[in-house]
């Protein structure tokens, strides 16, 4: 407070002085410098913890592992899912939210065909149905659902549809396509 501030220089009548910086400010400055040295040593020299790249690789490995568990659907797998009440329950929820508007709440068919009468337009095997749901039938107005719902929900929906086979919901749409081939 007492001594005259050091005059740096004068330019165009504007004086620049050089007072000492606040100690708290200098403390932050030096702390960050010390921290950066420690950070550098910790992550890049001693590698005591995974750095940014390491974390990315770890997460990428995690994703790869999860995808590896994601086996492509098969007839056996879908038939196994039909026996799992949890999956069928999820499938029913997916169906009511996305499919019921065209196929009816019981699958009796509205704009879309009846799913309960044992007649099929594009084949009756689990994988045939899966293909229709996942990739759609663009010419008929059936959208490809896999990109909106994801593989897991498509499988659940197919499992639910497989449970509807032969339930002959009342007020169903007239049969279309071929009867089911054993």
């Amino acid at each position, binding site marked *: *407070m007492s001594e005259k501030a050091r005059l740096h220089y004068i330019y165009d009548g504007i004086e620049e*002085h050089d007072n000492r910086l606040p100690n708290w400010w200098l403390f932050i400055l030096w702390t960050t410098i010390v921290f950066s040295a420690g950070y550098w040593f910790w992550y890049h020299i001693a590698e005591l913890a995974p750095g940014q790249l390491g974390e990315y690789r770890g997460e990428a490995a995690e994703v790869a592992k999860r995808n590896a568990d994601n086996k492509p659907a098969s007839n056996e797998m879908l038939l196994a899912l039909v026996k799992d009440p949890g999956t069928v329950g999820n499938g029913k929820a997916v169906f009511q939210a996305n499919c019921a508007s065209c196929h009816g709440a019981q699958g009796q068919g509205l704009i879309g065909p009846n799913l309960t009468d044992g007649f099929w337009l594009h084949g009756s095997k689990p994988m045939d149905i899966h293909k229709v749901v996942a990739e759609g039938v663009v010419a008929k*107005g059936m959208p*490809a659902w896999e990109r909106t719902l994801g593989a897991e929900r498509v499988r659940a929906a197919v499992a639910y549809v497989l449970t509807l086979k032969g339930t002959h919901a009342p007020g169903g749409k007239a049969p279309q396509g071929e009867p089911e081939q054993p």
Partner: protein
Amino acid sequence: MSAAPQNSPRIDQLSSIRADGSRLAIHPSDVQGRFITRRRLLFAVLMAIYVALPLVQVGGHPAVHLDVAARRFYLFGGTYNAQDFWRVLFLVTSMGFGLLFVTAWLGRVWCGWACPQTVFLEGVYRPIERFFDGPRERRLKLSGSPWTPGRVVRAGLKHGAYLGVSLLISHAALSLFVSAGGLVSMVAAGPTVSPVAFAWAMAVTGALYFNFAWFREQLCVVVCPYGRLQSAMQDRDSLIIGYDVKRGEPRGRMLKVKLGEVAPPRGDCVDCRRCVMACPTGIDIRNGLQMDCLACAQCVDACDDVMDKVGRPRGLIRYDSLNGLDGQKRRVLRPRLVLYGALMVAAFTGLALSLVQRVPFEANLLRFQGMPYLIEEGTVRNQFELHLVNKNPSETTLTIRVDSPVPAQVVVPQAEVKLASLESFRVPLFLTVQRERVTAPFVFTVEVKDSASGEVKRMEARFLGPTGG
């Protein structure tokens, strides 16, 4: 004068830092006067508003509830979701131009009267300090005294009070984000149930305590960008607090003169330093306009009190512009102010329009992915999907109606959609037309009516078909 030797604050140094860089705590004296009285009243009003915002219910929701986690925002009866974020542009520009306008016109009136830093520091923390440590002279004496058990206990109580107030303020802030009811249930359930909210509350409490117990006016002088931008926002006609050099100088005590001697010339300033002692940033306003001045008017009250005592008119230190202090006329209306005002009005108009034009529900008609049209058994079919979001604060029923100029079979699986507040839903929509009627693409309309507000939204879409075109 205090016991500690005091040098006058200098214009080329920060008052709150000693030559060795250590913190020099500033202890402003208590002043009485018209401005401090009005300021205290305003502080109380502003703090009451701050506490009331999450408590007062408007339209079934708190006046302000920013549910960031669910991206639902309730503001004074309006319900907003993430899709409304574009309105923030108008909000921010309105506030920005408003601040420019007010600063050019009234200088740092925000800093001295309405900024939370000032409101809480002068309205809450400084009174607490005064309660425990006494007025300025006692505080100065205390700060240099040895740490006796008595001083330790008193400091402990004072900082305990600081922490208690900081806890209250931070929880009031938290309730803006989790609502008052949510806050009560969170606190009752304990920190293990909602660790993130608890961590936020504690971090904000710590920041408030550090700021108001120790950092204080350094925030305004060293950190705050608005404070650093003053020189660009103000001109010689902006309202500032200034010392009338012409009237005050040469400063000094009134002297008794012996007979026959000529009294030295004296201005009105008696150099009592009351203005310096009253200053919360520790400057001497008589050195002229400085960046550290928050325009809090405590020096005005202090000086007016002295002027009354010595029988001189008030206003030696007063609210005025640089031109006014120079004895010229103070112009209020000037190009800068008109321009800022026009920009501010434009921004606020944009904000008002963006809020008035708000429909309390969203309805977007999208063509279904896949083929643009389908030909089936002599008919042409178009498929659409309607995305609905209820943005009312309450439940509503959205009714869908389709109007087609060409006779068409319309299938809407759900023509009446019941939605809770901020719930969304997708409805497919099918139009089937006899093929021979589709000679050219035609336009049909979809109407969505909102039962809660009575508002209607009409959307047009083209029916496509094999028109050979």
